[in-house]
Each structure stands twice: as C-alpha cells, then as structure tokens.
C-alpha cells in the first residue's frame, strides 16, 4: 500500500489516485482472470480429449443416436477411458496377487496389504452386516470397493481424472447396488414375503397409499449412495481447481505460495475422502442387503414357530 504523508494535499491526492489505480487494475485483472478461470473449469468436467504429458489426445467422437426416445451418446470420453484404466488395473492387481499367493498359507509382499483389506471387508463389513449368508456376496462387495477406490485415487494423480466425478458413473454403480439389494432380499425372503414386506403390514385398505411410498423408499437409498459419492468427488476437485485458479485470477506468480500450500493440504484430505467414500458406499450397500436378509430370517422364524 502506498504511504500517505501529511506534508501537503498534492501528495495525499497522488497517494489516493495511486491506490484507486491499483484497485482498478486489480479489478481489471480479476475480470480477465475470471474469464480465464471459467475456461479452466472444463478440467473438472467430462471432455472429448485426453490430456497426457505428450500433448492432447483426441478421443473418438461418435454421433449420438436415438433409441426409443432416448438419445445415447457412445463417444469415448475422458471418464470412459479412466473407467477402463481402473478396471484394467483392478483385474491385473487382483489376478497377479492371487496367483502369486495361491499356495502359501501366509501371503508375501503386496499380498499382505491386499489380504488385510480383503479380510477387513469380509469380517467387519459383510459378515457383521449380513451374517453367514452374506459370504456369497463378498465378491461383489470387494469388487465394488476396489473399483471405486481405484477410480477415486486415479483422480488425484497428475493428468488424471476421477470417473466417479461423473454422475452417470455413480448412477450406474448405484443401479447395480439397487439390483443386488433386491436380489439379496428376494433370495432370503422368497418372492411372496418380499412383496408382503412392500405393503408394510397395514390394513389392506391402506395399501393404495403404502405401496407407492414403500417403492419410493426402495429407490431413495441407492439414489443417496449415488449422490453422496458423486458430490464428494466433484466437490473435492472443484475446491482444488478454485484454489489453483486463484493464481490465474490474480495473474501474478507471487500469490502462488498460498494456493499451492492450501492445495497440498486439500490433496491430503482428498486422499482420505477417496478411501472413506469407497468404504461408506460399500458399507451402506452391505447394511441394506443385511436388512433384507434379516427380514427374511425373522419371517422364517415366525413361520417355523421356534426361535433360532
């Protein structure tokens, strides 16, 4: 800030004029920088090109086609590529680790880390929520957990993007979770009891109100799963790009210390959030499946007439 001295009106006038000019140029820079910042935002969204250290790779762009009133766009975009990368990484890691440790009672090397996570999910998430009947669903829960974890973590490496930052990807995961929840409930309760639970045990005159509400309730839980994962991932990336974008808004290198410092801190938080959100998604799916399986057990006990 310029120094204001008391030795005359002309200097005070000059000082205020300088200050106003500085503020004005800051506004002008901010306006131009604001325009630059909104051009930066495409980094957080899905795009038709892939950025790599070798330059920008153009991805195949197919025309959207219409089937039965829906417009389907099958172009391969950045998030699709990262979906495939995560799938390939997961398959490779899982197959290699399991092959190497097939004949050993105690795993060695990377297998120890894998085994730690697998046992934690099997004992604390699946069996704790679903009981012994849950062991048939362990593979689905483990696949979902590692897939979401790898997708989330890929967004944190340079030139990477997290596919879970796209609502379509999380919606797909939530649809599969919805199907698995219903499958586990129907398998445990039988089809007749499953529809009976949908009525909620009220008098038959109230079924008209009860059944739509219960069906809606079936859909809200996976919808919450979808939105929670999507907004967590997207929000983290938006915060990061807003911080780094401050450097572009101010158009100076000296300001770069503060945003980069904050960005390092937020990156650590993002790593924690990536692991936590994968765990929460999988734990809530196991919880909902466990509720369905338990409802099956209770009704079977009541039918048999003796407690287990």
């Amino acid at each position: 800030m310029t120094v204001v001295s008391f030795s005359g009106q002309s200097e005070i006038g000059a000082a205020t004029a300088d200050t106003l000019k500085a503020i004005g140029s800051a506004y002008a820079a901010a306006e131009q920088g604001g325009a630059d910042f909104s051009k930066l935002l495409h980094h957080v969204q899905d795009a038709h090109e892939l950025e790599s250290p070798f330059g920008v790779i153009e991805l195949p762009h197919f025309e959207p086609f219409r089937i039965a009133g829906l417009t389907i766009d099958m172009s391969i975009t950045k998030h699709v590529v990262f979906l495939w990368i995560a799938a390939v990484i997961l398959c490779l890691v899982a197959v290699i680790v399991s092959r190497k440790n097939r004949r050993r009672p105690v795993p060695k090397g990377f297998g120890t880390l894998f085994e730690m996570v697998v046992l934690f999910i099997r004992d604390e998430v699946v069996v704790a929520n679903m009981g012994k009947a849950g062991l048939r669903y362990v593979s689905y829960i483990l696949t979902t957990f590692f897939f979401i974890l790898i997708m989330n973590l890929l967004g944190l490496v340079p030139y990477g993007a997290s596919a879970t930052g796209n609502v379509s990807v999380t919606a797909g995961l939530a649809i599969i979770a919805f199907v698995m929840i219903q499958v586990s409930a129907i398998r445990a309760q039988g089809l007749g009891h499953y529809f009976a639970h949908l009525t909620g045990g009220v008098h038959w005159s109230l079924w008209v109100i009860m059944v739509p509400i219960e069906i809606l309730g079936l859909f809200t839980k996976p919808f919450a799963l979808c939105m929670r994962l999507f907004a967590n991932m997207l929000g983290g990336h938006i915060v990061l790009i807003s911080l780094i974008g401050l450097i572009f808004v101010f158009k100076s290198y000296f300001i770069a210390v503060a945003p980069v410092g904050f960005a390092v801190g937020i990156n650590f938080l993002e790593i924690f959030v990536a692991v936590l959100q994968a765990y929460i998604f999988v734990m809530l799916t196991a919880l909902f499946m466990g509720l369905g399986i338990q409802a099956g057990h209770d009704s079977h006990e009541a039918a048999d007439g003796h407690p287990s």
Partner: protein
Amino acid sequence: MDPKALGYLAAGIGAALTVIGAGIGIGKLAAAAMEASGRQPEVAGQVRTSMIIAAALIEGATFFALAICIVLAFK
C-alpha cells in the same frame, strides 16, 4: 436484478446455509462421540467407527444441497 446474478447469489447463500447445517450436525455428533469415549474408553474403537459412518451420512445430505448449488451457479 440480472437473473444470472441472482443465480450466483442464490448459489452462494445456499452453500453457506448448507455448511452451517452440516457443521452443527457433525459438531453435535463429535461431541457425543467424545463424551462416550471419555466415559468408556474400551468402546472407543466402535464409537469412532459409528461416528465416521454417521458423519458420512450427514455429509451425504449436505452434498445433495451442494449439488443443487453447483447447478445453480453454472446454469
């Protein structure tokens, strides 16, 4: 006022209110968890697990509102 300006204003105020709600909720949750851990240190591990799960659920609701704010700000 310009409708775009109103949209930005609404997004900002919405985000602030959302964070107030989340902060109060998770603050009460953390206070209860600390008190429970202080009373009975043996169950501190289970309390911590339940606390993280409940915090994630509260944040899920927060992020609904945040997603709406993002849509408002970018439309």
